[in-house]
């Protein structure tokens, strides 16, 4: 009798995804039995799940393992990114606790959805096959569409969910077309095989099917990283989505899109490097400039941070354009720093806000420096870090990215980058101007700290400062993570 050869299945590389999916499904089940006033326990459980996942992720450090015929690969690059996703999910969950109670959207599904989104991101980071990356992206996106519209009673949140869904589906279409064309031109969806095909058949670089495929993939990822001119969805979605979800979206999913973007471009299309770095150069300049200039005139803080997050994607693109190990390590470091400084800032916004997303304008922060000195000082740390002023993580990150660009000879790009930083200082300072220089009309007596948010703020401030003053260890880890 003929035996069917069953390929050896190695589940180790996707163990983190398995753990987190199981916990998320378990939470969905538990949710049914938990009364609505104690949904907070679900948050605690999901944090435990994230810690377990993190432990499983860390065990993959230093020994790249591929599985499923090379469709997924858990290497240092994936580990580093997965830890960023886990951090962003954990921090977002920490600040959700108070928010969902205030906005009366205390539905237990929030936590499993965040976890499913994290599973999607993790798949994107370790996918070596275009289909796996696409699968991860869809898991991520569908969870996010629901999360963006999670505040069912709010028109803005509904709008955010719908807008994100329509534009997200549109961009996914681009990405999928790009993948299909690339498959047509090279005969494989595995990015390693694509690279091999291109190496042995250099004439494919002139094949329009292939070139258009690569361009469409780039466009698809640019949508997801919110790079200008594909950023249009960002401000409305970020403003409308519930604040903790905005914090989450601006950190984790953006990093996930970068992870997949970097891996696909650098591994699959190295021979066309000169063409796509030219493209990235333009994308980086546009993204930084558009993000910063529009952020200058925003009154709503969430909207301002949305545009600023576009600008930050632009800084990361500077490192991507440099396309050297330093540039990629710079992106890794920057995404990690950005996760902490940005979610930290959002945590303060959650505290200052009132029911119905009220009190979200920069004017509403007037006098915070006098009435709540500690909270104001903490927000200052995040804002200085976002502006790239030493001694904070944001400064070291920008320093790394720009020096990578200069090393690759993109000195003009670095100059445009620092000029953009200077412009961005204005709108970050503006918040401080209101906090410290304007008289207060409010007494901020509704601002109540919860243990969860206190932990989140502490983690964010500590990380922002530690990465700014003694970044050595993390910089070395980021450097070691640059392997595909």
């Amino acid at each position: 009798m003929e035996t069917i050869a069953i390929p050896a299945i190695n589940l180790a590389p996707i163990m983190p995804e398995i753990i987190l999916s199981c916990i998320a499904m378990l939470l969905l089940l538990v949710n049914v039995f938990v009364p609505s006033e104690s949904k907070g326990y679900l948050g605690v459980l999901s944090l435990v799940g994230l810690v377990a996942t993190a432990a499983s992720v860390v065990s993959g450090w230093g020994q790249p393992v591929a599985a499923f015929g090379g469709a997924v690969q858990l290497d240092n690059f994936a580990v580093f990114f997965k830890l960023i996703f886990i951090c962003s999910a954990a921090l977002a969950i920490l600040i959700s606790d108070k928010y969902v109670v205030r906005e009366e959207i205390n539905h237990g599904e929030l936590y499993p959805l965040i976890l499913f989104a994290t599973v999607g991101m993790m798949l994107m980071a370790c996918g070596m096959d275009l289909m796996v990356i696409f699968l991860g992206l869809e898991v991520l996106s569908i969870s996010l569409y629901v999360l963006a519209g999670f505040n069912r009673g709010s028109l803005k949140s509904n709008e955010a969910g719908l807008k994100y869904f329509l534009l997200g589906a549109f961009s996914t279409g681009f990405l999928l077309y790009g993948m299909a064309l690339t498959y047509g031109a090279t005969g494989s969806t595995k990015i390693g095989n694509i690279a091999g095909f291109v190496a042995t058949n250099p004439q494919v670089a002139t094949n329009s099917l292939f070139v258009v495929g690569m361009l469409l993939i780039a466009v698809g990822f640019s949508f997801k990283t919110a790079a200008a001119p594909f950023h249009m969805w960002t401000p409305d979605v970020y403003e409308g989505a519930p604040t903790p979800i905005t914090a989450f979206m601006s950190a984790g999913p953006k990093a996930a899109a970068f992870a997949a973007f970097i891996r696909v471009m650098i591994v699959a299309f190295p021979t066309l490097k000169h063409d796509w770095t030219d493209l990235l150069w333009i994308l980086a300049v546009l993204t930084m400039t558009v993000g910063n200039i529009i952020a200058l005139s925003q009154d709503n803080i969430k909207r301002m941070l949305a545009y600023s997050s576009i600008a930050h994607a632009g800084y990361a693109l500077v490192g991507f354009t440099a396309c050297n190990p330093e540039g990629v390590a710079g992106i890794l470091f920057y995404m990690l720093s950005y996760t902490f400084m940005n979610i930290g800032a959002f945590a303060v916004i959650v505290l200052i806000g009132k029911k119905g997303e009220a009190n979200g304008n920069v004017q509403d922060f007037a006098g915070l420096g006098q009435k709540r000195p500690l909270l104001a000082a903490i927000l200052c740390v995040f804002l200085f870090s976002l502006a790239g002023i030493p001694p904070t993580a944001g400064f070291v990150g920008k320093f790394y990215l720009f020096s990578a660009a200069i090393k690759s000879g993109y000195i003009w790009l670095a100059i445009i980058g620092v000029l953009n930083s200077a412009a961005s200082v204005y709108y970050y300072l503006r918040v401080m101007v209101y906090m410290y220089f304007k008289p207060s009309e409010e007494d901020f007596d509704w601002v109540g700290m919860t243990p969860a948010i206190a932990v989140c703020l502490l983690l964010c401030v500590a990380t922002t400062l530690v990465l700014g003053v003694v970044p050595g260890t993390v910089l070395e880890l980021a450097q070691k993570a640059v392997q595909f």
Partner: protein
Amino acid sequence: MISHHLLTLLVFLPSLGALLILAVRKSDALARLVALGFAVAELVLSGYFFTLDTVHTLYPAPAGFFQYENVHWIDFFGIRYTLGMDGISLLMVALTAFITVIGVGVSWQGIKERVPLHFALLLLMESGILGVFLALDLFLFYLFWEVMLIPMFFLIGIWGHGRRIYSAVKFFLYTFLGSLLMLVAIITIFLMHGAQSGTYSFALVDLIGTKVPYDVGLWLFAAFLLAFAIKFPLFPLHTWLPDAHTDAPTAGSVILASLLLKTGAYGLVRFGYPLFPDAARAFTPLIYAAAVFGISYGAWIAFAQKDMKRLVAYSSVSHMGFVALGIAAWSPIALSGAILQMVNHGVTTGALFALVGMLDERTHSREIDTYGGVWGKVPALSFFFLLFCMASAGLPGLNNFVGEFLVLIGTFKVAPLPAGFAFLGMVLTLVYTVRLVQEILFGKERKPLVMHDLSLREGGILAVLAVGAVYLGVSPSPLLELVKGPVALLVGVK
């Protein structure tokens, strides 16, 4: 153990005081006392360094530095925590410690809101400035250079007058923009040096040896010059200064004028010229032009001012022109003169801002038009006013004379034309100073003003400054002796 880390102690002692003030925040009086305590302790500590004349360090120090600390920091980028003190740094450190005490003194009563925060910021400011004067690693220098802006931004914005918010933001953006381009230049020379030598380092001693192609050097020096010229401020990059000075609270103005402006000049002497000697030579005519024009222009515009504080602010543009002139000449005499002039200007202008602040506290007016016949009412205050105005105008026997004189004779040897024009500018200085003295102290009383004379605190502050002005004017040789060695080393570099 501690004796090997005296410089670290020197830099961070004020920060410690600031943290203490913020942590306690019990009463305003306590905050004042703690601030004064730390400022005086810092002054004593900086005085202690005058007694250390031999090399006193664990780490092998570059020539000229008698205090040196050099430890690992961010090995990943080759960044080290390097602090070093030579005669020039020591003078600047002493000036900083001295002026900070004055700054605490002048804001003793004038500041009534958020008192602890104010004094904490003054001390943080001191730490930042000291760091700039002592850092010998370019990354560390840049870090202090930026950090220094933050307390001043809040000082102007919270306790300032008039268009304080506009001025605070303008000050921050203007100086931040200039320094960012310097950051690009720092990274560029860091990478060039690394590519040439194989070891990546931000240390000044290493980077000085970098072979920079001439045209690249021009760009890099231009980036450094832009950052320093904005702080200096050199004409035409001075436009932030009158706004910031005028709208800042008294202590803020004193520290801005006496200390922050010096960091620009110091940066040019310590980093700009030594790193890019060829490019610096190429830029010298431009610096001469900016300096000479700034001397006359500053004096000219000062003459037209109605607001006393704005007048003193523009006079700073004029006086700092002499410092730029001395640096551009880059000869031992001129450079020594420029360094001495930095100290002199710090003392004189600090005193003038303090005086304006005292008048303002009494009458709530800084308009020259409101005053007249002040001598008859408050003779003690008027005496000091006259003294510091004369010092500012360069009266022999007082401090500014020595510095300006040295700069002029030093420059005359290498560049007679700029020196000649600068001399003309000195005459203009006399014009606006005499006008100020005449309209305020003498002249007719224009509005009935009720004024009391100096309190003990105010008298003490002014007396200390006056002793400084006279001492520097009569006996500058110990100071010149102190900077002689480092200046010779610097000029020899070229």
